[in-house]
């Protein structure tokens, strides 16, 4: 059973439907008490970091997420959920969750032909092995929609990269937390397989 955190930041139902498609039951909650009890968590989100963090702080979901991270519960961050797990974001002055050292930065592109948001299908290149990235190979593409991207301070947290004028981290991880800038729920079969692997993941780097 997966618990999807609803913190007023979009795309919850599409993630839930994608879980259903791979035969995994997923419940949606906004309650810190439910998050604390969860076996497995998806932390999705689209939208802006400042309002998302304000909501998490107000509801106490920030503390709940930090607690489950420390407790070793498998957590999957998606899109905004891959950005606000870092310490800060250029999208606003607010502090973020700080589960992984680093910051979220805005695309600064010199090539005027490249567009922001980075929207569409792009190749994901595995930078170091991770159980959730098993089987992803050259030419595998995922769906992106974003104007900011995560930049972990330490390369050991970078698991996959993509390129849009600049090479950027598109999947990061730390222990039982794994997060991706792209949308597995909108990336066809490859994305669904990633969710399926998460549903079985024990939260370690070997399993």
């Amino acid at each position: 059973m997966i618990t999807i955190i609803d913190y007023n930041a979009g795309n919850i139902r599409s993630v839930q439907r994608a879980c259903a498609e791979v035969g995994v039951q997923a419940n949606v909650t906004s309650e810190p008490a439910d998050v604390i009890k969860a076996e497995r968590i998806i932390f999705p989100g689209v939208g802006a970091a400042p309002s998302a963090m304000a909501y998490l702080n107000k509801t106490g979901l920030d503390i709940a997420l930090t607690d489950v991270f420390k407790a070793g519960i498998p957590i999957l961050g998606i899109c905004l959920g891959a950005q606000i797990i870092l310490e800060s974001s250029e999208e606003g002055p607010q502090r973020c969750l700080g589960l992984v050292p680093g910051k979220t930065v805005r695309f600064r592109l010199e090539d005027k032909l490249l567009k922001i948001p980075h929207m569409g299908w792009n190749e994901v290149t595995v930078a170091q092995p991770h159980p959730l990235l098993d089987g992803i190979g050259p030419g595998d593409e995922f769906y992106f929609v974003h104007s900011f991207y995560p930049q972990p301070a330490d390369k050991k947290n970078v698991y996959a990269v993509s390129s849009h004028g600049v090479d950027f981290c598109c999947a990061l991880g730390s222990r039982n937390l794994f997060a991706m800038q792209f949308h597995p729920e909108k990336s066809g079969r490859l994305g669904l397989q990633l969710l399926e692997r998460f549903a079985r993941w024990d939260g370690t780097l070997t399993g």
Partner: protein
Amino acid sequence: MGRHLDRLIERGCKISAMLSKRLVVCLDVRGGKLAKSIKFVDTKDIGDPIARARQYYEDGVDELVFYDITASRENRDIMINFVEEVARQIFIPFSVGGGIRSVEDATKLRNAGAEKVNVNTAAVKRKELISEIARAIGSQSAILSMDIRRVNPTKEIPSGYEIVINGGVTPTGIDGLWWAKTGEKLGAGELVINSIDADGTKDGYEINLTRMIADSVSIPVIASGGAGKPEHLYDVLTGGHADAALVASIVHYGEYTCRALKEYLDNRGVKIRLNY
């Protein structure tokens, strides 16, 4: 971080330099009891649009557009249910258009599972609609569709391309290039450029029109109207500077599969998603 990536590249990890071009399939959907049929000008019924959508999804289409050709207020709820069903079966982005007249319409469709919504006639009649939708659901989800026909350039229509509305039948006197730029300024995140002249001809997209607009805006452009052969997609994605090519009848009637179109483009060096 930068140095780490440099090392990855040195080790031979190929990192793609850009977004893939997109193959988009458009399905016309009728509301009411006929919501599950698809019709074209020859009124041939080609079946359940959701089953078709699922087929294209498995065949590797990058994005789908559902266009409600009845677009009446009575059919709004049916369209919402339809979108919810699509979202349960299709796990790639899709957009919905036809009869979207308000932010409420757009928000409901977005919440039902559409990644983007398309506005056309209603935005010409009241251009603030684009900004309102962009504010409510984000620019990246606000698509402006334009039906455009070729005319002799005049003072009012210097580009020689005029916007037509109501399904491509009512001329507006509005310059197509001006409208594309205005749409971008108002917050549209993407443009669909549908050439009325090319539509249905199967003689190829209107390359000049597509390139003129694509070069004048900094948001993605989807070319529409005229696809008859794989070469046409190649031409508009390269010489036409389009980010995506929209097709309908050439896949609906089984002349080409999505796979065949994409393999053709890949063979000619167009970056397109093939692993699915």
